[in-house]
């Protein structure tokens, strides 16, 4: 079990390092600088936590320091995740003024409603049996996951309704965040129910983050797919038929 735990903690960060290399090699870090910064931050946080954790194996009491670093890291990470989503929205939609005009208020209202909803639900998540630092961590984790998830669902539905094309990497980033945030949200809620052991929930969280990093890795190294050309897939008689259909529309 210790091996699985260590694997789920360390392996995703090694894979994240590969993601960083991939982003640097294919130059996509220039287009998504905040996402790149987020990955760098996750790696720095992991190194920091590992440095605190290893000596802490002997005197368990010093885990308090580890947990406070984790809480501060969660706050910074949540801000960077939100900024990454904004970056993706900017690449997809906000540079088209006629869509930006609608999306900006939509995102603003979504965030406002999510903050209100999260504040209400977070109050029910606090557990008396838990240490204060862990309570803070759970509430922060839950809040950031809900806000993240709500924003990315709003963004996905908006772009889906308008058939806005998603490039490979943004889709991968959003899919990864979606998996990780939804599992975090469920995990924080399960902890507050107190019916499942903390260790099992921790495994679930780490497995979700592992899946998220795998998705990012695949999308980082995947070649950008260009849409099918009409010449390759659609015969010329079809073009003529559309032309006639459209001509009819205008003549009516």
């Amino acid at each position, binding site marked *: 079990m210790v091996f699985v735990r260590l694997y789920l903690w360390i392996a995703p960060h090694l894979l994240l390092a590969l993601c960083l290399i991939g982003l640097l090699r294919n130059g996509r870090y220039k287009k998504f600088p905040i996402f790149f910064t987020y990955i760098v931050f996750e790696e720095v946080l992991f190194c920091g936590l590992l440095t605190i954790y290893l000596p802490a194996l002997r005197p368990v009491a010093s885990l308090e320091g580890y947990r406070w670093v984790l809480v501060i890291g969660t706050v910074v990470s949540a801000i960077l995740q939100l900024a990454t989503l904004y970056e993706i929205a900017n690449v997809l939609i906000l540079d088209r003024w*006629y869509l930006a005009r*609608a999306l900006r208020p939509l995102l603003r209202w979504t965030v406002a409603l999510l903050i209100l909803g999260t504040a209400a639900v977070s109050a029910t998540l606090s557990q008396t049996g838990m240490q204060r630092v862990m309570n803070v961590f759970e509430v922060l984790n839950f809040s950031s996951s809900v806000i993240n998830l709500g924003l990315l669902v709003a963004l*996905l539905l908006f772009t889906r309704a308008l058939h806005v*094309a998603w490039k490979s990497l943004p889709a991968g980033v959003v899919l990864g965040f*979606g998996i990780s945030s939804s599992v975090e*949200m469920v995990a924080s*809620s399960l902890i507050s129910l107190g019916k499942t052991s903390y260790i099992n929930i921790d495994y679930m969280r780490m497995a979700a983050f592992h899946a998220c990093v795998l998705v990012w890795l695949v999308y980082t190294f995947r070649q950008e797919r260009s849409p*099918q050309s009409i010449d390759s897939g659609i015969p010329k008689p079809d073009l003529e038929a559309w*032309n006639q259909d459209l001509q009819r529309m205008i003549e009516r």
Partner: protein
Amino acid sequence: MTLVWFSIIAGILALLCVLWTTKFRSTGTRHIDDAATQLRPVDVNAFRNLMDHGEREYLRTHLSSADFRSVHRERMLAAADYVWCAFRNAGILIRLAETSLNDPDPTIAATASNLQENATRLRFHAMQTLPKIYLSIIFPGLDWMSVDLAEGFDKLNRQAVVFVCVRAQ
């Protein structure tokens, strides 16, 4: 406790939604040739007539209140059908234009880009118009609708024809 269960269910539903929408994105372009055959003509003049403020006022003054409500409901349902049709057509044209955005011929790429922008705009406009039409069925007295959509249809149809002609050459 209820809120906690609600957030667990919401988390699972959100995950399914994310997986579904990203899956749809990856398979969408494969079916562009099928989708293209689904383009449906929109009778722009009939739509203009249905949305015309003067027509509505004429009906309101010449019909009893009950008759006007019934006729107005039928007219708005017909208008909604046209808008749905335009919404779908715009979606097909967005994907169709997307296939030519990286065309080596700059004329085709520019036409495709233009078509995509206008089709997105029309689809967005249709998205905004549909709820107004349905609300107008419930509250016939309110006049929230613009006729810009009909102009949008016309412009988009012209651009689509230009695009298809340029592409076929």
